[in-house]
């Protein structure tokens, strides 16, 4: 057989071989047999000098064409074998395997609410202030316009350490301490634990409050309403409405309870013809108490007569219960992981 026909016969043989190649390994063997350094094509090429010089270019050109087309055929088969292998391994991959269960940490709902509230007021320019949980009567009551034997003390049943030392019943003593330490103008927000001698389904004898105080010249109740409107809209949504209801606290005058339009029913009082469970059908939810600082409180801290200010306070657990739909107050301090890990 002459060299040319030997060259031409390579391609059909390779074709037959490729059709049989079932694995990448077989394919590689075939490639070495035909296209390897000592393969059949190389052997034919090595006989080139034996050809008539006139035929050499033609042979050489043909051999190169053949090499390229064979390589292309190999690559094509190799790609399809690789793709088949990927497909096979993908078929074994189980994307439904659950992820590794790393530890799931959580923050207490009281923390979430306190941090959220404090962040809103810090954004508005309030500083955070804190004070002791064990207080003296003077800061907790007297300086807040609640002298001994004042009936308003009934509003806050107190846990005492001695006759004069007690567990603070509200965060308000921090108002007094802050005003004694700083001159107006000032704006502070006070988060913290408070204590009452009161325990039933809706009261725990420890709970959390956040209290705010702003003192400056020419502060009016309109400013109080403005600040609280910003606050409740941040927490409960931008369309929340605020209602001020006359009330009484010894350390503010006038005093108001603040209701917000119910965030669940939108203030209409019912959902699908059933009374709303959050506002009990009234359309309003009580969220905090507030008022203009009573002149007696300014007097107790020797503030000048030309300042005015407002204060407000809210129960953290109450806000958490409203916001997250928690029904039972006692859960807050049982620390059941099934509760904690939801936050």
């Amino acid at each position: 057989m002459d060299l040319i026909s030997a060259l031409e016969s390579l391609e059909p043989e390779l074709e037959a071989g490729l059709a049989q190649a079932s694995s990448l390994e077989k394919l590689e063997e075939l490639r070495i047999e035909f296209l390897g350094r000592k393969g059949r094509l190389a052997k034919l090429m090595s006989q080139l000098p034996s050809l008539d010089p006139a035929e050499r270019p033609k042979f050489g050109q043909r051999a190169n064409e053949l090499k390229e087309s064979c390589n292309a055929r190999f690559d094509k088969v190799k790609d399809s074998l690789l793709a088949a292998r990927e497909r096979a391994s993908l078929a074994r991959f189980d994307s439904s395997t659950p992820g590794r269960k790393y530890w799931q940490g959580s923050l207490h709902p009281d923390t979430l609410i306190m941090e959220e509230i404090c962040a809103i007021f810090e954004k508005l320019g309030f500083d955070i202030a804190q004070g002791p949980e064990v207080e003296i009567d003077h800061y907790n009551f007297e300086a807040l316009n609640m002298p001994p034997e004042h009936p308003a003390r009934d509003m806050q049943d107190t846990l005492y350490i001695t006759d004069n030392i007690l567990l603070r019943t509200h965060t308000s003593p921090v108002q007094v301490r802050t005003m004694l330490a700083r001159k107006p103008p000032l704006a502070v927000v006070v988060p913290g634990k408070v204590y009452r001698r009161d325990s039933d389904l809706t009261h725990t004898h420890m709970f959390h409050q956040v209290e705010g105080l702003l003192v400056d010249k020419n502060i009016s109740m309109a400013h109080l309403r403005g600040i609280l409107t910003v606050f409740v809209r941040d927490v409960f949504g931008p369309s929340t409405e605020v209602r001020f209801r006359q009330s009484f606290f010894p350390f503010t005058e006038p005093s108001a309870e603040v209701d917000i339009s119910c965030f669940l029913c939108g203030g209409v009082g019912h959902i699908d013809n059933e009374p709303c469970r959050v506002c009990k059908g009234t359309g309003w939810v009580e969220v905090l108490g507030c008022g203009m600082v009573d002149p007696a409180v300014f007097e107790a801290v020797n503030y000048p007569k030309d300042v005015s200010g407002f204060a407000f306070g809210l129960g953290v657990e109450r806000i958490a219960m409203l916001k997250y739909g928690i029904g039972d107050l006692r859960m807050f301090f049982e620390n059941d992981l099934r509760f904690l890990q939801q936050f």
Partner: protein
Amino acid sequence: MLLSLSWLREFTPYEGTAQALGDRLTMLGLELEDLKNPYAALSQITTGYVVSCKQHPDSDHLHLCQVDVGQEALLDIVCGAPNVAQGQKVAVATIGTTMPNGMVIKKSKLRGETSHGMICSERELGLSEDHTGIMVLDSGTTVGQPLPDALNFDQEVLDLSITPNRADCLSVLGLARETAMAFHLPLTIPEVPLTFGNVSTDVSIEIRDPNLCWLYAGRVVHNIKIQASPLKIRQRLQAAGIRAISNIVDVTNYILLELGQPLHAFDLGKLTDQKIIVRLANEGEKFVTLDDQERILKSTDLCICDCEKPVALAGVMGGLNSEITPETKIVFVESAVFNPASIRKTSRRLGLGSESSYRFERGIDQRLTCQALDRACAMMASLGQGVVDAKLNIAEPKPFVPVKIDFSLEHANDLLGISLTEDFAKDVFTGLGCEMSATTNPWQITQPSWRPDLTREADLIEEVGRVYGLDNIPPALPPMHFSWERVVEKQPEFAFWKQLRHWAQGLGLNEAINYSFVGQKDLDLLNLPPEKRIPIKNPLSSDQDVLRTTVTPGLLASLRNNLAQGAFSIRLFELCHVFEEDLDAETKTLECPRLGILLSGLRHEPAWPYEPEDFDYIDLRGIIERLCAYLHIGSPSFVQRETHPYLLPVIDILVGDTCLGTLGRLEPKIADVYLAQKPVWLAELDLAALDNLISLAKLQFKPLAIFPCVRRDITFIGSEDLKVGQILAEIAKLKNPLLEDVTFVSLYQPEGSQDKHLSFRLTFRDPKRTLKDTEVERERDKVVQALLKALPVRI
């Protein structure tokens, strides 16, 4: 305060609904808590007429009645009451009616006769305890009407929450005054005609301390017949939540509710020498109050006495020794004003509150005191066929002097942030009953005698604000200020705790919040010293009678709760203050900030691919190491110590010379009490110390190494008690400048062998050049030789 709408209407012609009134009063600061119909249960009871009544053929006490209840047919009812008779108007429960006690009336047979209902006694209707016979209604009563309608009962009652400043609203009159003002209605006190008898009885009144009793007035009513009050009076008291007793006592309560003036009625025959002395009790004096309790009095308790003995605890409760009994003939009626603080002190000390003390504590309208007395006497005379004595016995050492208050409308508008007109403000003051001189600026406003809370301009500003409606104040934003002082202030504890909390949460711990108080026994269980604890004087229970001195008991209580719920892996942390006595502090208390961490149970939730392994020392220590790294305060060292009240082993955590806290394992005996079967690992860090370390820490960048490092592993074999720390310490002693790091990489104990194989990875690096293999081998060998010499180990 329970307010009957029909009673209110006797004072002011309010014609709207109870709900509308309640809503308006709520916005005025008198919050409507509830709208009640105290007689809802009687709405099914109907009025009837006994058409005929004859003896039951087979019974000597039963009667067969035919009763007209306004239906076509007469009802046959068998009635056992002795007083039932033909021609009576009666209250009838027809078949199917549910009685106030829950019983349902059914058709029944009594000795062969069918009964189609029941004729009711007052007790069966819940109106009184009287069950001697059926209730006989007024002959003019309409037949076939629901009983509460026919008898004009108070069926609309507003339950109002009255804040402590509004003493004036603890009466029908006071609430009528608010209603009249709010709805622009007239206010009138209905007349009770009073005629005096031809007697004048002196009862001398002596007030020892005029500061404790400002006014004491009394009048005698003669020839009284003690009996039950008419139904209308009894029903009114019942609707207001007060039990009817007898005509005399009922009148005192009726006037208290109506006018807000507490009254007391004495049996004059029991007052020795007909004399009243208002004085403080003798220390230790014994006195039996109307509730039959013996009280031991203190020298701070104000008493009403006769010549010999106390006869009442002033303003709180009367005495058994002068009580009105069915035999009483002559009554002495007291109407007084006492010092509110004094009444409150006694009432609180004895835990004895009454409708009277509640009002005295808050303040009484002193100008109404005598009017209330006369009104009461007139009613008593009318209800008990008595005669009112002409003599008013009175001592008033401290007459009411109204405060005159300067009021500037400008101040009010500035504080409220609105623009009220002069006319509006004048209307408000008129409605409140203030005298007013508005020709000058500021105006001069005179305090009404019934408003002890109005003494300052701020109080008046609140009044115009509340009548205008605080809810009508528009929102505005205040200017905010920034100062240099604020910038340099130290960050508050809250911010520091926030940083720690978020770190712990990110690490995978769950934040717990426990009560600040625990039981003394909880601290005892942990073998903690009894000194410096802070007990609570009036705890709610002995479980919570002392402030916590460590975060541990709370975390253990949370552990127990979670184990009871079947939790597998418990990782809790808590940030809080613990408390100890500090006699130098203003509050005699030191509040120490702490971080507590508790690990117990499985290291990981039982889930693929984790092996079920329990938490161990290295878990908790790793957390502490991670915290120190996070805060850049340097590596902590862990020093095991011998003893601790409740941890074993116990390890102190030190950074430099500062002790940050301890960690360790809860002693199994104590863990048992909390039902924990697996090891409980606890750490408690002093956050004041930690904060201090943070303030000293300097975060400084170290340039990255340029030349490569070379790593060599060495395994030391030693006995079981060989410690990792011994080897690390010995290596550290070498101070080899080329040795950059030593890491403990594996621990192996061949089965059946007493040996322990500890492998370490040594990292060598020269910052200035690449190390040659031979050099590294030489350095490694130095380490090996030094260790073989220093410790009983082999390679």
